[in-house]
């Protein structure tokens, strides 16, 4: 059993304790930098930052309820080649799972990386975060995050009650609130985060770090498992209701077209998607640079042709390309200028496709993406039992 340590919290703000942890890790010999969400000088949403100066850690905020970008692609970028030492990356569970998918696709590497995950209460989408900041009234950045942890632990933000801000739907439907196979996990669930938080090693590397830090061990994460079970159950129920609603809303091709009717073909969803890893989306290549007479041909065939074209085609193709790797982080919905429920749609599809291949995105870095492997005897049902 890994020994669970406790990270003491002073002045009631656990963000400070997390910063202190990162400061101590950065001071270790072989650590070249910390990659973590950081408050910009003007208060606002955090952005992932690569930090080498310990002073700059003072504005790091892993507990921020803002989530403007899934950092998986950035971590992939930083690990796609030599680093002079090890990098500490502080990631949300969905960022870690997306990064795991990218590692399988040779976009990043687990070498030279120490992953620090934190229990994730969820985040607001961009609009929701602004509403939250207003509701919390003009405090400095990290105090907002401490308040958020306190309020969300008390059950706030799980629904848009009384017009107040609610967590992003993706987060409320996320059954993976705890980091999986992180080297170190900051345990927040079921803890009085104004007193201390847990530090749970998940790998030998994490274990070694905890012992080097010399923190008091507590033996168990009292209360965390129970809290985790409860949160998972709530979210799974929410998720299943969301699946049901989305399925009904897209039950026929015409309904799907209606669901996606506002799509302007901006491809923001793909740009925001952490597992859409193509350097250039095929829909931006000249394969889709149609001739005028082609449009006319399609229009003649259908009587009328909605333009821009290839939006249905784009979404269906993107489902074929990445639903198996979808981690449900919700950045697609966050990025959509026309409020299409992209996350709801893709998560619903992903649930089907991933279960069909007994695959779960981000579960295990050693699992091969389903379309890159095959077996002689499998899926006989596809050919009506003939194999």
């Amino acid at each position, binding site marked *: 059993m890994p020994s669970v340590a406790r990270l003491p919290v002073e002045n009631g703000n656990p963000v400070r304790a997390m910063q202190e942890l990162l400061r101590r890790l950065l001071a270790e010999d072989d650590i070249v930098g910390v990659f973590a969400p950081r408050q910009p000088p003007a208060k606002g949403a955090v952005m992932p930052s690569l930090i080498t100066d310990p002073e700059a850690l003072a504005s790091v905020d892993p507990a921020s309820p803002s989530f403007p970008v899934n950092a998986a692609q950035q971590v992939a970028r930083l690990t796609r080649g030599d680093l002079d030492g090890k990098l500490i990356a502080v990631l949300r569970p969905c960022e870690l799972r997306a990064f795991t998918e990218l590692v399988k696709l040779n976009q990043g590497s687990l070498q030279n990386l120490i992953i620090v995950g934190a229990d994730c209460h969820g985040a607001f989408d961009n609009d929701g975060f602004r509403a939250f900041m207003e509701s919390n009234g003009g405090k400095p950045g990290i105090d907002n995050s401490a308040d958020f942890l306190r309020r969300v632990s008390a059950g706030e933000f799980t629904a848009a009650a009384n017009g107040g801000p609610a967590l992003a739907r993706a987060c409320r439907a996320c059954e993976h609130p705890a980091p999986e196979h992180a080297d170190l996990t900051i345990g927040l669930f079921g803890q009085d985060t104004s007193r201390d938080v847990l530090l749970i090693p998940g790998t030998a590397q994490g274990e070694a770090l905890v012992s080097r830090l010399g923190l008091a061990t507590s033996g168990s994460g009292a209360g965390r498992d129970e809290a985790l079970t409860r949160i998972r159950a709530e979210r799974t129920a929410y998720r299943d209701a969301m699946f049901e609603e989305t*399925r009904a809303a*897209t*039950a*026929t*091709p*015409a*309904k*799907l*077209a209606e669901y996606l009717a506002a799509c302007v073909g901006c491809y923001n969803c793909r740009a925001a998607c952490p597992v859409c890893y193509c350097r250039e989306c*095929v829909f931006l290549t000249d394969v889709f640079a149609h001739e005028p007479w082609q449009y006319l041909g*399609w229009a003649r*065939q*259908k*009587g*009328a*042709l*909605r333009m821009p*074209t*290839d*939006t*249905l*085609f784009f979404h*269906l*193709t993107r*489902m*074929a390309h990445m*639903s*198996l790797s979808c981690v449900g982080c919700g950045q697609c919905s966050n990025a959509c200028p026309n409020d299409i429920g992209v996350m709801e749609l893709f998560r*619903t*599809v992903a649930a*089907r*496709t991933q279960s*069909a*291949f007994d695959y779960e995105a981000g579960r295990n870095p050693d699992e091969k993406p*389903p*379309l890159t492997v*095959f*077996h*002689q*005897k*499998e*899926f006989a049902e*596809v*050919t*009506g039992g*003939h*194999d």
Partner: protein
Amino acid sequence: MEAFEPTIIAFVCNWCTYTAADLAGTARMVQSPRLRLVRMMCTGMVDPKYVIKALLSGADGVLISGCHPGDCHYINGNYKARRRVKLLNEILTGFGFDERRLKLTWVGASEGNEFAATVNRMVEDIRALGPSEAAAVQAL
């Protein structure tokens, strides 16, 4: 109302099903004219995009047909095709596509009769299902 006649696109492997189609022709095995062949070198070449494109631009059904397991001219292209069809089926059926609209079969080069039967069976199935709603959506 006039009787509905489906339009079906078939992506077939040059080495087996396409040859079987030749054989069926040589043997004058009458088939419905509603299925049209796209010659591929291997079912492993069939990009899921081709299937989606066909279904969005007017096809009421798509057939992919390749070599029997173990007989693939390119060793194992047919196994890759099978996974891709599995994936497409999972995606498309969620949006109300009947799974009979996307079919994968193994028809070897010598199986002219099987090819003709496959064509007629599929046309019959899709005729019974009626027109594909996706073909009528006025968007691509």
